[in-house]
C-alpha cells in the first residue's frame, strides 16, 4: 500500500487535493460576497482531485528504481533566476541561467557556450532594454544594468 502511495501520479493527485483543501479552507473563512466563486471552484477542485487520487491509487503499481536526472537542477535554476531578477535585475541572473541551460543540453565546448550565453542572455537583454527601450527589471536605479 505504501509503495503504491509513493507512485508520483498518486502523490500529485494527493498534493492537488491538499493544496485545494487549504485554499478552500481560506475561501470559506473569507467574506461571502468576494469568496462566492472561489468557494465553488475550490470545492469542485478538491472533489475532482480526491476522485483522481483514488482512481490513480487503484491503478498504481510499485515504482521501480529510477536513474537520477539533472532536470530538477534546471527547474531549480529557472526558479532561482526568476526570484533573483527582482533584486539583481534581469541581466545578472540570466547569464548563468542561459549558460547552465546550454551546458545541460550538452553544449559543452567553451566557445559556443560563451558566445551562446552572451548572445542569448546579453544580446536579447541589450536589444530589449537599451535598443527597443522595453524596460526590464534593473539592478541599478539608473536603469543601465
Amino acid at each position, binding site marked *: 500500500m505504501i509503495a503504491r502511495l509513493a507512485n508520483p501520479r498518486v502523490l500529485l493527485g494527493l498534493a492537488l487535493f491538499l493544496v485545494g483543501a487549504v485554499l478552500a479552507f481560506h475561501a470559506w473563512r473569507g*467574506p461571502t460576497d*468576494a469568496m462566492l466563486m472561489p468557494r465553488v471552484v475550490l470545492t469542485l*477542485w478538491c472533489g475532482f482531485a480526491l476522485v483522481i487520487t483514488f482512481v490513480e491509487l487503484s491503478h498504481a503499481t510499485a515504482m521501480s528504481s529510477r536513474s537520477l536526472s539533472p532536470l530538477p537542477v534546471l527547474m531549480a535554476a529557472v526558479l532561482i533566476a526568476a526570484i533573483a531578477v527582482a533584486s539583481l535585475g*534581469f541581466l545578472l541572473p540570466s547569464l548563468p541561467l542561459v549558460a547552465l541551460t546550454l551546458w*545541460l543540453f*550538452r553544449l559543452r565546448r567553451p566557445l*559556443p557556450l560563451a558566445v551562446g550565453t552572451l548572445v542569448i542572455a546579453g544580446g536579447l537583454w541589450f536589444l*530589449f532594454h537599451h535598443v527597443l527601450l*522595453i524596460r526590464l527589471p534593473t539592478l541599478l536605479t539608473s536603469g543601465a544594468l
Partner: protein
Amino acid sequence: MDIILAAVGDAFAWQALLAIVVGTWAGIIIGGLPGLGSVVGLTVFLPFTFGMSTITSMALLIGVYCGSVYGGSITAILINTPGTPQSAATTFDGYPMTQEGRVDEALGWATFASFFGGVLSCVILIFCAPQLAKFAVNFGSIEVFALICLAMMCIVGVSKGSVMKGLVCGMIGFFLSMVGSDPITGADRFTFGSYALSSGLTLIPVVVGAFALSEVFVRFSSRDDPGAKIPEAKLRLPRLGEWFKRLIELVRGSLIGSFIGALPGTGAAAAAFISYASAQKLSPRRDRLGQGEPDGIIASESSNNAVTGSSFIPTLALGIPGDVVTAMMMGAMVIHGITPGVRLMVDQAQTVYSLFVVLIIVNVAMLILSKPSIGLFRYLFRLHQGYVMAAIVIFSFIGAATVRGNPLDLVVAALTGILAYALRRADYPLAPLVIGMVLGPELESSLRRGLLIKRGDFLEFFTHSGISMTLFSLLALFIIWTVWSGIAQRRQSSANAPRAESDATK
C-alpha cells in the same frame, strides 16, 4: 463613392504599403516568439509612428497587430509552445499534426485560416459594423455569462483520456484568475498579505509557464532521443479543393471570431476557445479533433484572426476598446487625430474606410509574408537544440517581465512551468488550465453583475432575454449531447473489448 476611392488611394500610397510590409513581418516574428505578443509589438512600434501620417502609422500598427496574432500559431504548431495566448487552442491539433510529420499541412492551414478569418471579418466590418455594434449592445452580463458557460464546455472536449483531470486543471486555471482584487467589491483574495499579489496574476506568465517552460523541461527529459528533434518548418497552402471541402469550418470560425471580437472585453483567446468548442460539436470530423485534425487549427486560427477586424467595431463605432491591444490602438488613433465614437463615420469617413482597406491589405500581406517568415523560423530551429531552448527560456522571462513590470510574474511563470511539467507527466491536459484562466474572470464578473441585476435570483437568468434563453438552451443541449455521446462511446468500447479478446485468443 468618391470617399471610398480616395480611401483606397490613401491605403495604397507607397508609404502605407511599406509600413504594412514592415509591420506585418515584424508582427509575425514577434508573435512567434514565446511570451511576446501584440502588446509588446505595439509597444515597440508605437514610438516610430509619431512622425508618420495618420494612415501610414495605423497601417504599421495594424500590420503588427494582425501579424502577431497569426505568428503565435507558428511556434504553437512547431514546438507546442504558442507564441501568444490567442494561439493556445492551435496547439491542440497543430502539434499532433507536427508529430505525425504533417507540419507543412498544419502551417498551411493555420496560414490560410488566418487569412480567411481576417479578410471575412474585414468584409463584415465594412458592411455590418453599425448593425453588429447595435446587436453587441444587447449582450449584457447575463448573456455574456451564458456565452462563456457555453465556451467552458470545450474543457470537456479537450480533456480526452480523463475528463476529471481536465476539469481539475480548469479549476486550477480558474482559481489562478481569481487571485488579487475581487472584481465587484475590491476585497483582496488569496493575497496572503502580499502587496505584489494584490494586483492579481496575468495570463501571459501562466501561458508562458504552462506551455513554453514546461516544453523546455519535457524536451530536456528527452534530449538524447533523436525522435524528439524540432521538425523542419515547411509551408504548404491548402489547394482549392481542400479548402472548399472545409469551407463551412472556415466560415463558422470566422463568423464566431467576428462576433466575439465585436463584444467588448472578450478578446481573441476567448474567441479561439469558443470556436474550438463549437467545432467539437459541429465539425463532421469531430471524432479526430485533438489528434491532428485540420478542423481544429481552422477553428482556432480563423476565429482569432477574425477578431483583429471586428475588434475595431466597438473601438471605432462606440469608442469602447475590447481589450488591451485595441485600447493601445485607440490611444494611437487619438494621438493621430482620429477620435473614435459614434460621430467617427460622419466626421472622418475617408479615414475609416482607409483603415478598412488597410486591414484587407494587411491580411493579404500576411499570406504573402508567411513563407519567408516560416523560412526564418526554419533557420532558427536548425540551430543546436540547446540554443533554441535557452532562447525560449529568456524570451519567456522577457515576455513575463514586460507584461506590467512586476518581477513576481517571472516567479509565477517559473512555478507554473514546474507544475505544468508535473501535470503533463501524469497525463493531465494543460489546455483546460489556460481555458479556465482566459474565461474565468469574464465568467465570474458577468455572473456577479447578473446576480446584482437580478437581486441574487439565479433562476431569473434563464428567462432574462431571448438571447440568454437561446444560449442556455444550447448549453443544455451541449451537456445532454456530451453525456449521451460519452455513454455511447463507453458502451461501444466495452462491446469491442470481448471481441478483441476473442480475436486475440484465436
